[in-house]
């Protein structure tokens, strides 16, 4: 198992290297001269050339890329913001707690709603409860999150005046963004829980559990849900990327100072080191989350762990 984790951690290196190359190349081909953007249209060619030299932007693509990678590896630096002149990583880390809080609240809400409705839907297959739940879940998946956010503001902030529509001052501020971000994910988790439960529900061991007089609740939770959990955990893990993307929208709608809002502001201000840094940061985070999900499997399903053990034993013998 440890070998597998080390292997996966090592595999992150080429993946992240690839991500850096792609993101760096995209920013490199972005039209417009960075020094001119920073100095304004009235800058003289001499001052533009001097700034380009200072920032190392007059060097060839490969050298710039190498320097960027060197900065990340040796100094854990994602460059300096053009706008604030602060290290990009500091800017990201200052905003990350808000994004993490939003994502965590949304995933908790989505998981609770998604799993509970998914289980009910599977147990009551083709009954009214199932049809309503699947219909609503599909609405959740199909609804543009920014539209839902605006409608929530319209109803709960403008009409009813119950909840604030911007900022993070109190716990009430988090309610609308959490619902906005969590709805689509809840729909996805619900659909996955339902289909995964339905796969398990007709297995022989479920019939055996019932035949030996097990209580229905125990059959559902211990025998059905436990065995249906792997695809559900996978989908929750995969949703982290969706949540990060959703956070971009939510933070912009509800004026939350997180990395999503930071990314959009950086794009609008042509602050490319910040754009690059944020995308890399999120990509690294998603890769780590995926690794954690893979490790979690072994705790949920001991059969997976035993597969590693058998493989290891086989390798040792062979």
């Amino acid at each position, binding site marked *: 198992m440890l070998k597998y984790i080390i292997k996966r951690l090592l595999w992150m290196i080429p993946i992240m290297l690839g*991500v850096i190359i792609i993101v760096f190349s995209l920013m490199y081909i972005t039209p417009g001269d960075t020094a001119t953007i920073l100095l304004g249209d009235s800058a003289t060619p001499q001052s533009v050339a001097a700034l380009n030299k200072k920032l190392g932007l007059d060097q060839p693509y490969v050298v710039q890329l190498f320097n960027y990678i060197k900065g990340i590896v040796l100094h854990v630096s994602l460059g300096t913001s053009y706008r604030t002149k602060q290290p990009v990583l500091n800017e990201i880390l200052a905003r990350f707690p808000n994004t993490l809080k939003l994502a965590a609240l949304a995933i908790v809400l989505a998981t609770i709603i998604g799993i509970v409705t998914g289980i009910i839907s599977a147990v009551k297959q083709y009954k009214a409860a199932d049809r309503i739940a699947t219909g609503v879940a599909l609405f959740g*998946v199909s609804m543009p999150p920014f*539209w839902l956010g605006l*409608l929530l503001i*319209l109803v709960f902030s403008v009409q009813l005046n119950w909840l604030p529509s911007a900022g993070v001052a109190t716990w009430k501020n988090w309610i609308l963004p959490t619902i906005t971000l969590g709805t689509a994910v809840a729909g996805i988790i619900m659909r996955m829980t339902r289909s995964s439960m*339905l796969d398990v529900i007709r297995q022989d061991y479920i019939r055996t559990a019932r035949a030996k007089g097990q209580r229905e609740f125990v059959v559902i939770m211990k025998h059905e849900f436990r065995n249906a959990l792997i695809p559900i955990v996978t989908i929750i893990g995969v949703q982290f990327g969706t949540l990060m*993307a959703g956070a971009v929208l939510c933070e912009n709608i509800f004026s939350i100072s997180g990395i999503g809002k930071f990314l*959009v502001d950086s794009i609008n201000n042509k602050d490319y080191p910040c754009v690059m840094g944020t995308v890399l940061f999120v990509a690294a985070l998603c890769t780590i989350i995926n690794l954690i999900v893979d490790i979690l499997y072994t705790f949920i399903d001991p059969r997976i762990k035993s597969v590693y053990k058998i493989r290891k034993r086989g390798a040792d013998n062979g």
Partner: protein
Amino acid sequence: MDSSKRHKARNNSIWADTARRIRKNKMAMLSLTILIILIICAVFAKWIAPYQYDAQNLKEAFAYPNWKHLLGTDNLGRDIFSRIIYGGRISLSVGLIAVGIAVVIGGGLGAIAAFYTKADNIIMRFMDVFMAIPSLLMAMAITTALGSGTRNMMIAIGISSMPQYARVMRASVLTVKEQEFVEAAKSIGCSNKMMIIRHILPNAFAPLLVQATLGVGNAILSASTLSFLGLGIQPPTPEWGSLLSTGRIYIRQYWPMTFFPGLAIMLVVYALNILGDGLRDALDPKLKN
């Protein structure tokens, strides 16, 4: 084989079976009808829309829905219903073309990976790198590099969603490749090219079609998200996301500008999701659940 038998054999093909099964799925058929109506509206917008999408009438600005303006008017007195119909043209074409790009490039790379073992590792590891970046963020980075606009947005969304299609196509081709009919074709001396075009690709295409149907909805959502954030199509072009983005400023005073474009997006994505689910069930009834 006489002609009636041949006809019967043809009707038992995977696609005929699928068509038969999907016709029984009422929700999928309803969704298909909604989509066809929307496509017709988008194509014939010039004749169907009661007003030009850019026809301003400041005297009637912010009018609530009435008989003259079914969905009301916007801040410049433009008819929201007409703008949504014209907007459908852009949103639907962005969705379809972006998915087309993803299917051609992603599906093509997936098929190559499945056919040629040597290329497999390189292509799929490349896709792993792409998949490490959330697709919306990837699309945002690409639009930053290429600039905003309809064409660039199609490319950005197409490229960012490409890895999913590569994975689906690869898995599908790998399964079909091992089937007995492929072996049979090989044994009667069928050339590689013929085998790929006639036997493998048509049979491996079904999962890709399901993915593409669901993908069009996601592409429309991504496009409207980019436009909403000001990174996609810019006003006054009436793309659904950009209509919503403009309406957002007036949400506290006037809701129709935000409500109706969002409803249009949701309706299309909902219909595409139901159709995609229906297609998946029809193509593989064993998967139904």
